[in-house]
């Protein structure tokens, strides 16, 4: 795998046609979920999980804004009523047990109200009902690679398109050469790990954000309900190019997905055959032998 990757990279930098081929793919991504200028809220939810997160957050936000306004109102009253001019004689009150009980109990009640939907959401996210397929995600410094173990196990790397190669319609720092393709309305198991440092695979519109930790495989799931192209970025500081390893997922109909798989198998199988040759070369040992 190690050597194949190096070959892939060399292959790509030499021949630009892969990029050109996939530019066509990306142009067709019609309803893209991406951050918009001056956006103040979540990106539109594309999965049941994100819908539930948005809903729960709306509850939290409403109550929290209420608390802030309440405190602000009290402070304004204090400013206008209890300044030295309006109220020259300070009161001597230092205790009011009922009041103290109230401001302890009411927050507790609010927190209990929060905790019920919170727990529901948490356990809903954790449970993968019955995933129909698996996507394996591996974090690297500084790109992602993807495997489709249930579709013959082909794999490919996904690198950010550098600024100078951005074409009109592409999103700077978000678009990649090889997008992940997933079928719509399909439960997909996501297995994540890393081959070097900790990264984090995140797509805001999916409500998915999970660390890729070297030496362990994390699992989550996603079921995208709307076709389109979705963007995210690495969300754990992973070194120099942490800001330059975006995630781009293209969600298509199940039929289109089948066609894509057939095409991708050929496309990426070719690249994958490379390691056979590498063995004959005198590959320098990369292992840090202490």
């Amino acid at each position, binding site marked *: 795998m190690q050597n194949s990757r190096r070959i892939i990279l060399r292959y790509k930098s030499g021949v630009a046609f892969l990029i050109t081929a996939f530019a066509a793919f990306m142009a067709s991504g019609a309803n893209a979920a991406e951050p918009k200028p001056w956006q103040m809220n979540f990106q539109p939810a594309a999965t049941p999980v994100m819908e539930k997160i948005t809903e729960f957050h709306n509850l939290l936000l409403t109550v929290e804004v209420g608390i802030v306004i309440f405190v602000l109102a009290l402070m304004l009253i204090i400013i206008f009523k209890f300044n030295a001019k309006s109220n020259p004689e300070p009161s001597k009150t230092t205790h009011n047990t009922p009041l103290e009980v109230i401001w302890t109990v009411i927050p507790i009640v609010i927190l209990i109200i929060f905790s019920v939907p919170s727990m529901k959401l948490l356990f809903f996210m954790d449970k993968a*009902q019955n995933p129909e397929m698996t996507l*394996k995600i591996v974090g690297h410094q500084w790109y992602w690679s993807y495997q489709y173990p249930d579709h013959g*196990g082909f794999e490919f790397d996904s690198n950010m398109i550098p600024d100078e190669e951005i074409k009109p319609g592409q999103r700077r720092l978000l678009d990649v050469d090889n997008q992940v393709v997933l079928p719509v309305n399909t439960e997909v198991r996501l*297995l994540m790990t890393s*081959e070097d440092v900790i990264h984090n695979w995140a797509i805001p519109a999916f409500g998915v954000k999970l660390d890729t930790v070297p030496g362990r*495989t994390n699992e989550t799931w996603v079921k995208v309900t709307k076709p389109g192209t979705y963007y995210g970025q690495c969300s754990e500081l992973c070194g120099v190019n942490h800001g330059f390893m975006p995630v781009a997922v293209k969600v298509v109909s199940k039929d289109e997905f089948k066609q894509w798989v057939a095409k991708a198998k050929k496309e990426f199988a070719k690249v994958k055959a490379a390691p056979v040759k590498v*063995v004959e070369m005198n590959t320098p040992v990369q*292992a840090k032998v202490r």
Partner: protein
Amino acid sequence: MTKQPDKIKRRTTVTREPKTRNGVTAVILFGLVAGMTGLAFASDPLYRIFCKVTGYGGTTQVAEAPAKSKIVDQMVTVRFDANVNKLLPWQFKPVQNTIKVRLGEQAIAFYEATNVSDKPIVGTATFNVAPFKAGEYFNKIECFCFTEQVLKPGQMVQMPVTFYVDQSIIKDRNTVDVKSITLSYTFFASDDQSEAEKLQTTQFITDEKDTIISREVVPKG
């Protein structure tokens, strides 16, 4: 705040707490610091034990072969996953993608590792299962991950893992929904490369032969 300064009176004699009392307090506090430091170091073995015992973070269990009588008819799919750390020039993959087994039934799966470098290297594998909550019920009887593996340049080995999934997984409210379990390994270059160095010394003598090996054994890709 709760005391009134107007009632402060100044005394003419100085009554200080004895200095020894400060000393005693400081010694107690230093003891506390030492205790917390000790706890920090103790956390390493404690954390490992905790993970092993509870299956936390998908840590699998080690077990003897299961009793035949405990086999139940319910099936579970076990998926196999393989990873190699960047610093280890090996290829590593499962021979089979999935296996369906009955709960409680012993099964065997194979992984294939190839050293694609020109040096012998010792590798060691970490592992976990996903979802994590299945770790408590996933029992390994025999596994290549129990020991370190030494691979010569170009050498390819098939490595078995025998395991069973405890049937009590369906009795646990938490894990009753688990229909498939992914068993995942990651190979790292071991920190202790002394075994590889031994091989390397011999390798210098039989260099020609080793080159042949590396040409003969070509991974299937």
